[in-house]
């Protein structure tokens, strides 16, 4: 059976769910960050699938921008994590609770 639009969207949805679960579950900041990227990738997959099935380039162009922004975001985010590590000497999120009341 040919994979239809629903199939691709289901895969994207599963990837998104897994990424979200990763954000909820993991305590390593870097792994949380990676799971965020996973969620982004899921959204790009959904976009490309819809773009393909509705015969429009808009989705693909949007993916182009998503990849750009994700790259920039990762760079800055990792710089922040490194700076945070220098101060707190930990990357475990339950130890990074200085904003607690």
């Amino acid at each position, binding site marked *: 059976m*040919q*994979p239809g*639009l629903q*199939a*691709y969207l*289901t*895969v994207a*949805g*599963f*990837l998104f*769910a*897994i*990424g*979200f*679960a*990763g954000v*909820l*579950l*993991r*305590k*390593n900041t*870097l*792994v949380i960050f*990676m799971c965020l*990227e*996973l969620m982004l*990738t899921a959204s790009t*997959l959904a976009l*490309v*699938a819809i*773009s*393909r*099935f509705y*015969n*429009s*380039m*808009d989705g*693909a*162009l949007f*993916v*182009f*921008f998503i*990849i*750009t*922004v*994700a*790259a*920039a*975001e*990762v*760079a*800055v985010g*990792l*710089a922040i*994590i*490194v*700076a945070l*590590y*220098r101060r707190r*000497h930990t990357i475990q999120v339950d130890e990074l609770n200085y904003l607690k009341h």
Partner: protein
Amino acid sequence: MPAFFFYFFSALTILAALLVVLNRDAVNSAMCMIVALGGVAALFVLLQAYFLAVLQIVVYAGAVMVLFLFIIMLLDPKTRRIPVSEMNMVVGLVALVMLAIGAFWLARQYPTVANLPPVEALPTDAAPLGYATAAKTFGYGLFTRYLLPFEVAGFLLLSAMVGVIVLSKRTPADAHDDPAKPPRK
């Protein structure tokens, strides 16, 4: 044939994603992430978005994940291995299942377009932004309809670059610290 490849690469991607989440070691997670990204690139190829597939490999898996690996390696191995607590595991899995069901249901809302419409190689004059496989369509779209976002994205990259340089400056207090050593407390 395309159906088999689709199922294979989807399973690969989902499995790799699960391993990303469940792995104890951060380096292992990064490696699984690269595999997952590769699987997604394959799915892009199946959708005839060749340019994006290559972009995914080169930029995402190549540059972004390598950067991740750099940073992971920079940190002490002991700090990399942080397991998940059991309570969280239960809650997380529940959330996962719920989300998955939700995603599945959402996907069902879309009409079943079983037959892939034919796709051109190059854009036609009748539908200049119709789906086509050549990289030229990206160029066309970026420099006509999406010119402003394109410029803004450039600016964004510039600011990210500047931000990263500023953020990674060492303060005098940190100058004597080796991140690999145990904390000073």
